[in-house]
């Protein structure tokens, strides 16, 4: 029975059962949803105005930055064209919401409300506004399960953005720490270095922020340095998350969602 499952033969059964289970998850999520709704509808006019103003200024800032970005992207494309290397297709995202449920406290798994109907697939990367969060491991009719980068069974190929040094970051089971166990003592890495996805392994698209190095311990009698880093994504605070479609998967998304909008972000 268990072996059967390891070869994914029982997926249909699990999918069927999950439909019966779905109302329970919804029920558990309900209080959080209600509180959210309540606080939103109860906030005062002044608060809303303040928030509006803040968002407005932030939007302006982002727009200015994105203008510059567009310019840089064009330049980048031109240079790549000169080099004769392949064009990097812009990634697209889909917004998903977390279910407020606890699973195994020893594993860092979360549930999101987007499923195969929305084009979600196994191994799809998930991020929030600040960095990579994890990857989808199960897609069922009522929800999808995501493994966070801090799960002890998860590793992600990363790159130090300062010098391009490539390595692998592994989860530790603590929500605010991942470790880099495979770097030698003399590796050029120091506190404050930013780690971005390297794109190796073909699961995570390259260039997204993952973590910031917080601690480097070089012990001469050990083969590898002990390095820990803090994920930039708000792993236990974000409620709205982004599913990233990159490369060939964009075609899949078109297939299942719509045929409109070729460029930019899609909701």
């Amino acid at each position, binding site marked *: *029975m*268990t072996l059967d*499952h*390891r070869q994914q033969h*029982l997926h249909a*059964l*699990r999918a069927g*059962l*999950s439909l*019966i*289970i779905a109302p*329970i*998850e919804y*029920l*558990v999520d309900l209080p*959080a949803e209600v509180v959210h709704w309540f606080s939103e509808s109860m906030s005062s006019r002044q608060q809303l105005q303040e928030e509006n103003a803040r968002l407005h200024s932030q939007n302006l800032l982002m727009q200015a930055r994105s203008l510059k970005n567009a310019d840089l992207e064009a330049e980048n494309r031109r240079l790549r064209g000169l080099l004769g290397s392949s064009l990097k297709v812009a990634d697209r995202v889909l917004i998903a919401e977390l279910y*407020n*449920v*606890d*699973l*195994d*406290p*020893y*594993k860092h*798994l979360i*549930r999101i409300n987007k499923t195969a109907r929305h084009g979600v697939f196994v191994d799809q990367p998930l991020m929030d506004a600040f960095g990579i969060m994890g990857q989808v491991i*199960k897609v069922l009719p009522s929800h999808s*399960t995501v493994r966070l980068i801090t799960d*002890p*069974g998860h590793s992600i190929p990363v790159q130090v953005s300062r010098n391009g040094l490539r390595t692998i970051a592994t989860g530790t*089971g603590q929500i605010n720490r991942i470790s880099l166990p495979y770097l030698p003592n003399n590796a050029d890495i120091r506190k404050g270095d930013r780690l971005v996805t390297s794109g190796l392994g073909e699961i995570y698209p390259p260039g997204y922020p993952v973590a910031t190095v917080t601690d480097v311990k070089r012990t001469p009698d050990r083969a590898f340095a002990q390095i820990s880093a803090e994920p930039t994504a708000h792993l236990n605070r974000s409620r709205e998350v982004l599913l990233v479609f990159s490369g060939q998967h964009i075609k899949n998304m078109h297939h299942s969602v719509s045929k409109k909008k070729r460029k930019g972000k899609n909701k």
Partner: protein
Amino acid sequence: MKPVVHQGGWLILATFLAAFILAIVPLPGLLQFVRPEWSALILIYWCMAIPERIGVGYGWIAGLFLDVLKGTLLGQHALCMAVLAYLVINLHQRIRLFPLWQQAIVVWMLLNLYQLLLLWFDGITGQPSKGLQFWLPPIAGMVLWPWIFILLRHFRRTFKVQ
């Protein structure tokens, strides 16, 4: 001889439903390591109270739902619950006679066994080890048992479940 009329099935269903909800309700911080195995406790009670009705089959099905709910391997909790139901049915005549605190100790041992089976599954599937706090839920279950027992007995008597 008059056949026994089964009634109150909805109450059994409702208790299991409540257990499923409690199994995934978000708990703050360290409290989530102490979360007792609600569905196992409920199963133990019903197997003890009406063993001719609730048994290994029900345990297995409830475990299957628990598997889907928690996203574990399909069949992991199912097997644990089935074994639990079998043991309780074997022991039910003895456990019923015990005073509450002795019952709680037996429940603690049963829950430990349940946890041991789960640990064994984790070992087989290559999950990282979990430390000593993995043994806290059975203790929480033991502490809660008398209250659960009294509450469910009250329900069973008022609604005449048999």
